[in-house]
Structure formats: structure tokens, C-alpha cells
């Protein structure tokens, strides 16, 4: 059994609702979907017990159908990356901060806030990033309907 397969099986053993939610795309690339309600326990397990101790990035995206996806890319020391995706509704897009696990998550979470208008519960107040200070309120450029012209309108 390959290393990736081993990681997948252990995860499913621990959380049986993850059955059918984990995909090994290729060597060293694991993708999985998790409901927002289960996110914290699965993420906690991956970081604290499964060895994914580095944060590569957090990707936020507008998937259409009134859904946003947030993907947490975390890596281990064996060269593998686990991409854990959770979906949140557009009308109340909220995730919990993971700065308790990774202090460096701060900057990626601010990107979610600035570029997609996702709320991050528990994130310290701070200066906005990465958009300029004079960026208009309520304009989130990575939302699909946002067009460049809108900013100056």
C-alpha cells in the first residue's frame, strides 16, 4: 500500500463520513472534501496527527451556484500535499481562523476577506491585505461577477 493510500485509509477509519470524499490525484497529491461542520476535527487530525505540519497556501474561490470553496493546502515532510476543501454558502460565507495551528495563516485569511468577502471568525484585527487602503467597500474582485470596470463606476 502506498504512502498516500495509507494516509487516506487512516483518515477514513477515523472519520467514516470521509469515505468517498478523498481522492489521490497522483503520487504525493491528495484532495478531499469536507463539510464545514466537520472541518475543524478533520483539519486538527491532519495537522496534529497525520504529519501535515506546514501550510502551503489557502485558496478561496467562487464556484458559482451561490457557493464559495476554501481549500487549505498543507504539506508533510515527505513531499506530499493534502488539499482539504470545504464549501460555504455565499449569503453567509464564514470560516474559522486556523491561526491557532499556523500563525502564518493570517496573510492567506486576509486574502479571503479582501478578495472574496469571506468572513474569518477569530482572526485578529489588522490592516487590510492585499488590496490598497482606498479600495471601495463591498468590492470583491475574485467573485465571478466582478468586472474591472465596476471599481470605477
Amino acid at each position: 500500500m502506498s504512502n498516500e493510500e495509507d494516509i487516506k485509509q487512516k483518515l477514513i477509519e477515523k472519520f467514516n463520513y470521509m469515505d468517498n470524499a478523498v481522492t489521490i490525484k497522483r503520487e504525493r497529491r491528495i484532495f478531499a472534501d469536507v463539510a464545514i461542520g466537520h472541518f475543524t476535527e478533520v483539519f486538527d487530525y491532519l495537522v496534529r496527527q497525520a504529519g501535515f505540519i506546514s501550510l502551503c497556501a489557502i485558496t478561496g474561490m467562487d464556484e458559482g451556484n451561490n457557493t464559495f470553496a476554501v481549500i487549505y493546502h498543507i504539506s508533510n515532510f515527505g513531499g506530499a500535499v493534502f488539499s482539504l476543501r470545504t464549501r460555504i454558502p455565499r449569503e453567509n460565507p464564514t470560516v474559522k481562523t486556523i491561526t491557532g495551528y499556523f500563525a502564518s495563516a493570517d496573510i492567506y485569511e486576509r486574502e479571503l476577506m479582501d478578495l472574496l468577502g469571506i468572513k474569518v471568525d477569530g482572526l485578529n484585527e489588522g490592516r487590510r491585505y492585499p488590496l490598497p487602503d482606498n479600495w471601495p467597500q463591498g468590492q470583491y474582485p475574485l467573485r465571478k461577477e466582478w468586472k474591472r470596470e465596476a471599481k470605477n463606476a
Partner: protein
Amino acid sequence: MGYNHRGIEKACEEKTYIQGLYLIERVCGICSHAHSTCFVQAVEEIAGLEVPRRAKYIRTIIGEMERVNSHLLWLGVAGHEIGFDTLLMYTWRDREIVMDLLALVTGNRVNYGINTIGGVRRDIEPEQIKAIVKGMDKLEERTKYYIDLARKESTMLERLSNVGKLSKEDAIRLSTVGPTGRASGVDRDTRRDDPYAAYDEIKFNVITDDHCDVYGRTLVRLKELMESYNIVRQGLKQLPEGPITVKAPRKIPAGEALGRYEAPRGEDVHYVKSNGTEMPDRVKIRAPTLANVQAVAHMLEDGYLADLPIVIAAIDPCFSCTDRMIQLKNPLTRTKKTVAWEDLRLKGIEWYAKKGVDFSRLNRKLENCLG
């Protein structure tokens, strides 16, 4: 932190994959090949393209020459930040060798434009191989001299040692990447741990160091230069025959992939999601500086203001900014105060005046000169 958000990720969603590739090459002026390779690898993975071996070798060779370009540039900047400008002049003169070679092979000194989806756009000719080998030998000789310098020259030893400390635990905790992490003993390198291009067929050492300071970061980059020369020579020697591209479709089937690349500054990450059209649904770029910049605040704790430039420079940062503002935090009262550039200048004059150094005559002279 100063920044200039260019909206490249959004722009990628409005362009075809090939147009996006040229835009992504311009995320960074130095790590241009790093970003374009990272991106095409993700796209090729989604499209299920088998890139020819010769193309993988050419990507590796250009990638290592880019690292040589970048590390020599860094060494010069580091020299400048510690007032050792002779080192800047020397290294930037030597850097011309590799930049000329890159221009010879790709047509450009920066933004090489060698990658395309499915392979590379230009082959390496036998005469070019001879020129590159000659250049690498020359640069290897120069780098040996710089390593010797770093071990003996008191300017470097004293100015770089115990500056910008970052323990191994903190380097891991803060998810630092590249030479910044490796100089704190973190034994990670995407080229070895998650091999791409031709790295699984090439022998090289991952350089680590346990100084955990700016001096360690200097040694790691210097020794990585020596490894890069070897990788380039091996790549040229083992260069397989065959085509340099496979035909790529204009429309990329729906899917997602995560590309990783060991850029000169550390791990570069690109996430690409496609939707079956000729334009991507989402491109996420995490450049290595973003991973390292947050460790800088930690490195500066309990340090001297005068060390600030070299500590920041030591992660080899890549951002267009000069913020002339300082925030003072009083740890006892937990209050914050902002000091503007002008106040800082006046404070400096006052501080020297108390020590009996008076700049006022000099300042008046200067003002007269400037009219």
C-alpha cells in the same frame, strides 16, 4: 508591509492558458521561470500531457541557471546592505556570465519565455552546451572564492553572525521555505522531496546549515550555487535526444492540480482549476516570499535597527515597496506609536547631538550647495 496588488490571479481567469502563461512569467522579475514552470506543470497534469524528457531536462537546466542568477544577485545585495559594496560589484559582474548564457539559449536575460504547455519553445544547440559548461566552470571558480571569503573575511563574519536569528522550531512553526528554512536546519527541498522536471534523474545535495542566522543563510546560498553548477553540467551531459514539445489542446478538460517548484527563494505553489474551456476557472499563486515574510518580524525581535536591512534582505524578499514608517510598541503599557520618517531623522540628529556630534554646519553647507 508595502504592496502593489496587480490582480494577476483575476486577470488569469480572463485569459487563455497560453496568455496566462506569459502573464505568470511576470509575477517576478527574477523567478520568472519558476512561476511559469510551476503553472505549466499544473496545467499539464490536468490535461494528462506527457512532457518529452528532453523538455524536462531543458526546464531543469534553465531553472538552475536562473537560481545562479538569483543567488549571485542576492549575494551582491547582501554585500551592499552590510556596506561591503566591493562584493556587490564583483558578484554582479560575475552574474553577467550567466545572464549572457540565458540570453544565448532563450533569447532573454530575464523572463526567458522558454516554457509552453507541453514542453519548451527552444532547443539547446551543441555550441550552446559548450558555452554553458565553460561559463559554469568559470562561475564555480568565482563561487569558491566567495565561500572562502565568507569563511575568513571579518566584515562578513561579524556583520552576519547572530543577526536575524530563527530557531529550527520557529522555522517549522512559521512554515518558512527555501534557503530561509534550510539555514535553520529544516531539511526540505521540493526538488528532492516532490521531484518535478528532470530532478528525479539527477544527483544533487540539499544544503542545510545550523547557524540559524543571516550568516547561515549566506552559506546555504553559496553552497547551493555549487550544487546548481553540477546540476547544469549533469543535465547537459545526460540531455536525452528527442522532441521538445507535445501538442497541447487549447481547451483544458475540467480538473484541478497543485504545482510545486523549488524557486531560488523557496517553494513556489500554484493551484489551477480548469472547467473544460480555454480559460482557467481559478489560478492561485503562492510565491515563496509570502511564506517567509512573516518570519521576518520574529527574526527582528531584540535586534538592532541597523541590522534591519540585512535581516529583511536575508530572506531574499521580492516586493515592490519602501515604507518609510515605523511603529513603536511599548510591551509594558501595550501602547502603539507611529513614527514618521521626518521624526526619525530628527531623533537621529538629537541622539548624535547629545553625544557631541553636530551635523548643523554640514547640513547648512549641503543646503547652500543645493541652492
